[in-house]
């Protein structure tokens, strides 16, 4: 299954050459093989998946023709609502909460014939870069079990890297799809803000959050995007746009000029720089002009992000009070304030508490002008600067991360060091741009991603270029050694 594209797999299911039940069985074989070591999933749904697969197999080929993802097993990050199933965001505070409705993306996947086989582990409320902040388990990187898979969508990245599935959904607020995709050697796409409805996604930072797919290839990501995109009245930020994710199979590169931020490249270690330059050489060998660009503001992107995103999070997470959702910690003499305080203190983990406090501080009277308002102004300035960069080129190319996956526990004691893992990915979220991480040449035997970013709603250009690169290289074909 791992070697096949989603398109060809669905065709096989549609004409009856492969049964959906076989695909589900294959997924659970891989889950049984890897899951004891990797712990990527918070729960799986084998019986329900088998029943759905059997129902698809019972359809006629003509009926299956109507289902663009007929029989495709998929994994969903546990901050996206699946009706009737737990929705924990990997947090104790939502440990016993179940979703009352399907997220728009889940609705669309189901209508397209996809089968939800499992829900994946993540950093609590998507806050983290290693999936170590889950309240329930630490997910391991299948390339080296002593290393993190990245985060916050670490479980979804591992699900694709190990072959549980050809598609897992994640969410990306500051790099939470692209960074784990880079660490796990898979393709991770963050669509433009407004491309996919976030109805049913638990909010972290609402002006940054986007749902997107993990796949093995950009071609597969485009196939999934075709199903997920579109205006949805239940998310007022989702946009009407003439989307078309049909990819061309041109031999010539779909871009003429690409720029890379020189300051980011200068910060790289020798091996990481060589990996990045190998991708540059591929582009140049095919006639693409690749030139450096200087940007003062990109170096400040992480600072902007760590003021604005926690501020939004502190507001979004105020709703978790033990009254309406999830766990409640209460003693008989507690007042309302005491119960809410007890619930939140015991329900939120350290990283979530840190960001709530930080966000509350930067919004405080006396500090809001200096931090929040100032950062919003710089965000506007960054957007203008990036608009000018994109006027002179088709795409921006940069590494996804400064380094390969780090060791489990290596950065947990120092939050600031952990935050730096997102230094190259936050730019796309700040400006609402489309960006993808695809595997580049490995570094020391571990995956190392390269990131392509374009302006807002240039999603197809990003996918088209990534697809072309994956036609002329084979970096994306590597997989972790089977256990």
């Amino acid at each position, binding site marked *: 299954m791992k070697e096949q594209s989603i398109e060809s797999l669905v065709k096989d299911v549609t004409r009856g050459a492969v049964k959906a039940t076989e695909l589900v069985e294959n997924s659970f074989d891989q889950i049984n093989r890897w899951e004891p070591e990797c712990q990527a999933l918070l729960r799986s749904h084998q019986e329900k998946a088998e029943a759905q697969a059997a129902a698809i197999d019972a359809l006629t080929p003509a009926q299956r023709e109507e289902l663009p993802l007929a029989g495709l097993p998929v994994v969903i990050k546990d901050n996206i609502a699946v009706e009737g199933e737990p929705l924990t965001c990997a947090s104790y505070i939502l440990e*016993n909460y179940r979703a*009352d*409705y399907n997220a728009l993306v889940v609705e669309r996947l189901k209508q397209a014939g996809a089968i939800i086989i499992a829900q994946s582990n993540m950093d609590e409320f998507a806050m983290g870069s290693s999936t170590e902040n889950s309240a329930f388990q630490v997910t391991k990187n299948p390339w080296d079990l002593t290393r993190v898979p990245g985060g916050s969508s670490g479980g979804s990245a591992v699900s694709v890297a190990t072959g549980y599935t050809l598609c897992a959904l994640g969410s990306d607020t500051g790099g939470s799809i692209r960074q784990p995709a880079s660490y796990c050697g898979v393709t991770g796409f963050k669509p*433009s*803000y*407004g491309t996919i409805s976030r109805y049913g996604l638990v909010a972290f930072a609402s*002006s940054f959050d986007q749902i997107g797919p993990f796949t093995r290839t950009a071609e597969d990501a485009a196939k999934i995007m075709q199903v997920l995109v579109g205006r949805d009245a*239940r998310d*007022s*930020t989702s*946009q009407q746009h003439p989307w078309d994710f049909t990819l061309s199979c041109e031999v010539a590169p779909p871009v003429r000029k690409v720029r890379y931020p020189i300051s980011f490249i200068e910060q790289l270690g020798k091996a990481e720089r060589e990996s990045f330059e190998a991708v540059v050489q591929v582009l140049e060998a095919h006639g693409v002009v690749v030139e450096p660009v200087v940007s003062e*503001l990109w170096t*400040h992107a*992480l*600072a*902007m992000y*760590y*003021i604005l995103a926690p501020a939004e999070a*502190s507001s979004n997470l105020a709703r978790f*009070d*033990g*009254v*309406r*959702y*999830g766990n*409640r910690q*209460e003693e008989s003499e*507690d*007042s*309302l*304030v*005491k119960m*809410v*305080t007890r619930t939140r*203190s015991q329900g*939120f983990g350290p990283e979530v*508490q*840190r960001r709530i*406090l930080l966000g*509350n*501080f930067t919004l*405080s009277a006396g*500090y809001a002008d*200096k*931090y929040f*308002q*100032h*950062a*919003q*102004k*710089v*965000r*506007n*300035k960054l*957007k203008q600067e990036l608009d000018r960069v994109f006027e002179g080129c088709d795409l921006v190319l940069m590494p996804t991360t400064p380094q390969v996956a780090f060791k489990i526990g290596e950065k947990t004691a120092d*939050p*600031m060091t952990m935050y730096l893992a997102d230094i190259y990915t936050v730019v796309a979220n700040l*400006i*609402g741009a489309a960006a993808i991480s695809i595997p580049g040449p490995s570094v020391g035997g571990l995956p190392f991603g390269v990131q392509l970013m374009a302006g807002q*709603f240039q999603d197809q250009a990003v996918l088209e270029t990534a697809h072309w690169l994956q036609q002329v290289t084979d970096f994306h074909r590597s997989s972790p050694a089977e256990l």
Partner: protein
Amino acid sequence: MTKISEQFMGELASRTRLELSGQEMMDLREQLNTILGYVDALQEVSVEECDDSYNVHPNALELRPDEPRLMGDSGQQLVSRSVGATDGFYRVPRVLEQEES
């Protein structure tokens, strides 16, 4: 450079409804001050003539009609998700604090 004082840290914890031990308070204050030390570099950026309201995309938001509606057959399904639900209502502890005797 801005530093969060011990007293203000206590205020933040109270406002966010988080109960922190003395050690947690100390560790978090140190970590937040390190983060503020990093983000303070943003002050170097001149923002004259920059708008402080930000829209991620240029298109106006299309809002749905502000009409009350029930989820499913009734709101009871949502209320029942609360561990403190009683007789179809959310139950909360007493709101007024008791005076210390």
